[in-house]
């Protein structure tokens, strides 16, 4: 079904004056509803949402144009200040909008680290100057300079509006610091977001410890390094909540079956823990390091035995922390998304320059530039019948919104009449080829360059303003 979103034509940042979305498939996880609908938007506000029924709904399928609330990414790296060659706030927000995201939460591992309100002000000024209507939220560092020694200015950062604390890129190594941070931040209603990794088990590690790494001669990165860190974090959290009921632990980019099992158990026990998983740990596996390019759910773990190798091995764009895991672990990531153990999909968008990535695999910087392909990877799982569309959308919208709580400054009522339009329109039947030139991120470090994905984003509207609009053709 063709929808001419260009009728809305206007530059980024302008109020969306007028848009009629007729006979589209609407998904509104917050309202628990999906189906054929008409939407009318005037002057940046959703004027009406009409859910179609009966004959009006005939022929409107979920595999065409879809409208959903704007996506929220709990984990991005925008690299400013300090590494603007890789990404700026402006290029990162443009990339986010291209991916359908209207809110991003940026990590504090900038240079200098975002460990005091001055750096936050700098990042916010860059966002304002960009003209992008995408909402930029930020985490503050847990420790000063992310050195893991002393607490950063948690209270001042909280007052200045950070949405949580993280030393991401590295775990909070000291159990005492983590305990204190959870308590201190918890009393202010803010989460600690931990990158769960027992660094003593991953020194020099290059690839998931397993068959593929053994064959390729890459230093093994054991799954147990994540599980043991998660177990420690949960044990500390259980101690802290006795004193500070407001404590909240969020575990980001969980990638292993065992770690997700631990979170599943902790949630069942009532601990205040949430977690996210990434699109790449869902859709890719360590088979890709060997040169396989099949989706995780099509993998067997033995690309050599299956003659599944179609690309050169050791592609440095696949180097990421945590590493791409086994087929079984990727299956566990999917299962966690399906049963709600994983609250959200977050991209861990990690743009890098070619200087840092077009090098030997073992020297390549960790990270995937993924915010523009996140929807495409999730839709690949949807297309394969592994993930319901509504669940995929929920993991990008209502899921992360619940993790964020009231800390976003914007109301997020979803596709609701009278609300500011904050939505994405994409076409599942419109396949697009990922190209370096087409990515708005400065980081071209994507393992799916040259690959065709479904679900081209046609329009992203953030807070009533145009954030991204697909070019003609």
């Amino acid at each position: 079904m063709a929808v001419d979103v260009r009728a809305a034509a206007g530059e980024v940042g302008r109020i969306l004056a007028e848009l009629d979305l007729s006979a589209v498939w609407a998904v509104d996880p917050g309202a628990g509803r999906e189906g054929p609908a008409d939407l009318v938007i005037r002057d940046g506000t959703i004027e009406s949402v009409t859910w179609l029924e009966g004959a009006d709904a005939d022929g409107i399928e979920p595999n065409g144009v879809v409208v959903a609330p704007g996506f929220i990414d709990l984990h991005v790296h925008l690299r400013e200040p300090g590494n603007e060659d890789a990404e700026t706030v402006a290029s990162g927000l443009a990339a986010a909008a291209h991916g359908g995201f209207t809110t991003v939460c940026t990590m504090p591992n900038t240079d200098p680290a975002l460990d005091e309100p001055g750096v936050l002000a700098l990042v916010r000024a860059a966002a304002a100057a960009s003209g992008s209507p995408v909402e930029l939220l930020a985490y503050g560092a847990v420790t000063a300079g992310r050195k893991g020694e002393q607490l950063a200015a948690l209270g001042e950062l909280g007052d200045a509006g950070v949405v949580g604390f993280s030393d991401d890129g590295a775990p909070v190594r000291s159990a005492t610091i983590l305990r204190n941070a959870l308590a201190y931040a918890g009393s202010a209603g803010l989460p600690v977001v931990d990158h769960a990794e027992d660094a003593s088990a991953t020194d020099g590690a290059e690839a998931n410890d397993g068959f593929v790494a053994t064959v390729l001669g890459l230093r093994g990165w054991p799954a147990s390094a994540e599980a043991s860190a998660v177990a420690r974090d949960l044990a500390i959290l259980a101690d802290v909540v006795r004193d500070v009921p407001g404590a909240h632990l969020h575990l980001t980019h969980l990638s292993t079956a065992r770690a997700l099992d631990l979170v599943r158990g902790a949630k069942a026990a009532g601990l205040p823990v949430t977690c996210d998983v990434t699109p790449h740990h869902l859709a890719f596996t360590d088979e890709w390091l060997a040169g396989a390019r099949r989706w995780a759910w099509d993998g067997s773990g033995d690309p050599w035995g299956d003659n599944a190798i179609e690309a050169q091995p050791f592609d440095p764009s696949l180097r990421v922390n945590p590493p791409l895991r086994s087929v079984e672990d990727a299956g566990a990531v999917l299962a966690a998304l399906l049963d709600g153990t994983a609250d959200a999909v977050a991209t861990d968008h990690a743009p890098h320059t070619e200087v840092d990535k077009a090098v030997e695999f073992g020297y390549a910087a960790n990270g995937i530039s993924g915010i523009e392909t996140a929807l495409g990877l999730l839709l690949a799982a949807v297309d394969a019948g592994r993930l319901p569309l509504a669940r995929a959308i929920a993991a990008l919208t209502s899921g992360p919104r619940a993790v964020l709580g009231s800390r976003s400054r914007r109301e997020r009522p979803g596709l609701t009449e009278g609300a500011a339009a904050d939505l994405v329109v994409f076409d599942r039947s419109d396949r697009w080829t990922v190209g370096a030139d087409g990515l708005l991120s400065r980081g071209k470090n994507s393992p799916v360059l040259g690959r065709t994905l479904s679900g081209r984003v046609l329009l992203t509207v953030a807070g009533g303003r145009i954030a991204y609009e697909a070019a003609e053709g």
Partner: protein
Amino acid sequence: MNLATTDETRSSLTDLPVPAVDADPHEQDVPWRHRHVLDVDVLSAADLELVMRTADAMREVLGRPIAKVPALRGSNVTILFYEASTRTRVSFEVAAKNLSADVVNIAAATSSVAKGESLVDTIRTVEALGARMLVMRHSVSGAPYLAAEVFGGSVLNGGDGWHAHPTQALLDLYTMRQRLPGGSVEGRKVVILGDVLHSRVARSNIWSLTASGADLWLCGPSTLLRGFEAWAARGAAAGRRFHVTSSVDEALRDADVVMALRIQKERMASGLLPSLREYAARFGLTRERLALARPDALVMHPGPMNEGVEIASDVAVSAQSVITDQVTNGVAIRMALLYLLAGVRDGG
């Protein structure tokens, strides 16, 4: 990568055309289709046979009063080593010179990323300087694949990290075929003993020896076999069976070939081994242990050796040792690969 040799492919190997190595490689009609040699995993049984037969022809050249053919005259072979090596580098250099190539040697600093030029820039530079073939050694697994992506000519992997050492595996196979009765490794018990985890020699030998039908055993302390049991399980499913054990007695009993691997001192620092002394006592290839093997078992070592640690001095120089044959055959194998690559590069 189903390399398991079938009877059908084996019978077709007998009428494989072998190049006349005195002639120009471009004029040879040989079924060689690989532009690079980065590992043996992509070599078919027919490819392996062609390399072996071409190496036979090169052995013949090496036996001549003037061990030289004009095959690569005017062609630039650049040897780029990011890791210290004497034997492999010199072997490649001798091989290239025996083929009348112009040889350029570059010993590069290991920490290229931190200190200077990137690998990609270096490759572009040597190509601009006229390199048509690049022999490369690097301490990072997979580095030659990056080189092959940017280099216009052929890349020959001289060893990358823990990953692969294809010329070593091929010269090992050649040496075994040369010295084993019947001229084949099929059904022969071949033991690789030592630090398998960190060994590119072991990994490449797994591919070539399982493809050639050897009864392959990997043996060492369990910390240095990490992950190989899983590989063996996968291999068995794919018809590429091999065995993994920490029992030296079980591995060596009735072995036809025993290959000891170098053990490095830094393995103690990372907690993989208690001490070199304990390693030598439990896993060192001594005369007493070798007695478990067949009386005529071949003793091999890729070098350089730590005599008295992974191999006893008297074993290394015993009548059963073919360690110096490995060195000579290494030249023949590298000549064969350079020759075959020269043919495919310009002829294709």
